């Protein structure tokens, strides 16, 4: 009877060059592998709604990407399946994404997807089909530390492609059963390997946008999704106020703003100001957007909740770290300390621009991801 080898690995294949290269690498190493593509979102679903492209060009789960993944798997001669996770994706990623914006926060859907689908549900599915580990094309490293008795998440060799920011939510069990075969490679090497193997996706452009939002227009997506759900965009027009409480303008909805934004602010001010105004914060309860000058955007303190510690079992006292507060933020020196039961306080040595509620804050020591959480 054809039996799966005991150490079979499920490779999450998106149809992109990175995950295709992972499959090729593991296959070349002689591992027993199975390719899986998660069908997360039907790109046709909101097509044609106002502001949404008529023609579907989104990257995530598009027919073209599934086709590429399948063709790569066929070329490598590995079993390949598409697994339907649309219900779970909508529940755990799309709905929270929409709600976060409606609550004046700026969400990170990729992290939610990693936490709930790519490393959680995928591992369950992998185990059900007889594989015991999953491999993905993320740029990060995972290794076991005897000294700490824990699985560690580390930044990758290719710092420009570092995706550890999106992976801070992984549990010890998940890390123990996850492989990141690209962690020690740089992107040009990955492309070269794909080309060498003759993979059809070797020159395929990287995806840049949020996968389920074709064209990247998240406001159009919010409108279209709420309309489809039979809900109107909540009325959230209100005032622009300064930190001192002075009303300086009005706006048509808090979901149009994110901390640090300049665009669209000046024309909503009642009077002309010589220096440009930026969004400093959003107060959803009052539908107020706090605005002010550039230097007011720079803050030293943040509170972080829903923490996940990787290198530690818990944070018990102050710790010196490098803290990163958005995907494109250069980690900055800070001290973190426990705050109440379940939160941590971050105190940066130098003020940081636009600390944004809803984004993740990740703490490093050198290459090591200590842990992270969500900015309140």
């Amino acid at each position, binding site marked *: *009877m*054809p039996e*799966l080898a005991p150490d079979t690995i499920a490779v999450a294949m998106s149809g992109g060059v990175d995950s295709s290269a992972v499959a090729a690498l593991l296959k070349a190493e002689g591992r027993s592998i199975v390719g899986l593509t998660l069908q997360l979102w039907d790109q046709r679903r909101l097509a044609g709604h106002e502001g949404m492209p008529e023609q579907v060009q989104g990257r995530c789960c598009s027919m073209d990407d599934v086709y590429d993944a399948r063709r790569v798997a066929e070329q490598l001669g590995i079993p390949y399946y598409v697994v*339907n996770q649309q219900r779970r994706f909508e529940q755990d990623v799309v709905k929270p994404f929409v709600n976060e914006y409606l609550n004046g926060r700026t969400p990170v859907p990729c992290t939610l997807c990693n936490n709930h689908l790519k490393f959680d549900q995928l591992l*369950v599915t992998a185990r059900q089909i*007889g594989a015991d580990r999953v491999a993905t094309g993320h740029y990060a490293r995972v290794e076991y530390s005897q000294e700490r008795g824990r699985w560690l998440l580390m930044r990758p060799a290719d710092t420009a492609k570092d995706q550890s920011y999106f992976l801070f939510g992984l549990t010890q069990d998940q890390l123990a059963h996850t492989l990141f075969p690209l962690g020690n490679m740089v992107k040009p090497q990955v492309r070269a390997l794909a080309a060498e193997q003759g993979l059809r996706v070797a020159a395929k452009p990287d995806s840049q946008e949020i996968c389920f939002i074709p064209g990247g227009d998240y406001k159009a997506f919010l409108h279209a999704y709420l309309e489809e759900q039979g809900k109107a965009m909540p009325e959230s027009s209100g005032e622009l106020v300064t930190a001192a409480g002075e009303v300086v303008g009005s706006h048509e909805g808090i979901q149009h703003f994110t901390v640090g934004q300049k665009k669209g602010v000046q024309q909503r001010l009642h009077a002309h100001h010589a220096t440009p105004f930026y969004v400093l914060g959003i107060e959803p309860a009052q539908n107020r957007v706090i605005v002010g000058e550039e230097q007011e955007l720079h803050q030293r303190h943040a509170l972080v909740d829903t923490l996940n510690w990787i290198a530690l079992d818990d944070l018990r006292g102050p710790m010196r770290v490098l803290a990163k507060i958005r995907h494109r933020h250069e980690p900055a020196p800070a001290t973190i300390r426990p705050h109440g039961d379940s939160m941590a306080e971050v105190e940066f040595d130098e003020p940081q621009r636009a600390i944004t509620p809803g984004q993740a804050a990740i703490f490093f020591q050198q290459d090591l991801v200590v842990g992270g959480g969500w900015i309140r």
Partner: protein
Amino acid sequence: MPNEQRIYMDANATTPVLPEVVDAMLPYWTEHFGNASAVHEHGRIARSALDEAREHVAALIGASPSEITFTSGGTESDNQALFGALGPGQHLITSRMEHHAVLHAAEELDKRGVEVTYLDCDRDGVVSPEQVRDALRPNTRLVSIMLANNETGVLQPVREIAAVAREHGCLMHSDAVQACGKTPVSVRELGCDLLSLSAHKMHAPKGVGALWTRRGVRIRPLLHGGPHERQRRAGTENVPGIVAFGEACRRSTEWLRDGGAQLLEALHQRFETGVLKRIPEALVHGSQVSRLPNTTSLRLTDVDSEALVIALDLQGLSISGGSACTSGAVEPSHVLIAMGLTEEEARSTVRISLSRLNTEAEVDRALDILDRVVQRSRTIEAVNAASCEDIQRSHA
């Protein structure tokens, strides 16, 4: 080693072409390649092959050869029946557990001004003649109810429903794609007017089918062109495919005459009894009503059917779960939803469909594989559910 061979138990999706059927069709690719409409000998040989095939197909369902129209398959036959019989302002009665070839054709007709009533089926997957009677309207032109359901194998009371239709003076169509070649079918006994058949469900190639149309019943053609098929279906006939279809029908008729269906049913019983004995928390849909002798719709509590089908595939057993969407991902079966199952119940249901080629040894090996994989799947499901509860507790 025979033990290394994969086991195929997805006969309702398609069947392997019998070697004898391949042999029968082979000369019609090369030596006898003629166009059946041509006057010369090449054409006459092809024409003769078509005539003979038509007789075999007709014999399988107790029809006259002139009532058989060859098509490109079951989907075309269903579309031909519905689009050919119905026009704006007329009314169609069908059920929610029909094949998509009927359901999606009905949806399109709805857009073109045809009134459509979709009947639900009961918990066993049966549509009753009473439901059809209650749905009749003065402008009802066609009733379309399948003979055997592809997911559950449940046989529908087509004879009784056809009687209701005839009494009302409207036409009766039945999609018999799953029934033909597995169980005896007689159009005279059924009393319907239109019946769809597919070749590849009975050990002939894909891309061939037929629509039986009772003599005297006139419907509009779907395809327009040459005078082929008595002007009912234009297009040069797929002679090799039709020859194969005819040969498969001839063999099916013999197989049924020689008690093949009873042997298949015994094999099927061996499987179902084995499953219910060995696997706890398992149930067979429609087990209380008449079914095809090959189909098991099996619900396994706490098992994700999508992962189960993959796991079984990797263990060398081919079965199906739900219907595949364009990407290849699996959606819960609309048939099970129409039977009143919850989405969760539908997502824990798989379909095992045997063919006359399966053996007792295969059934026994399939039971071993299924038992082992379901056990593993349930262990993982339980561990996962427990850890989810832990997480919820720690957040509470």
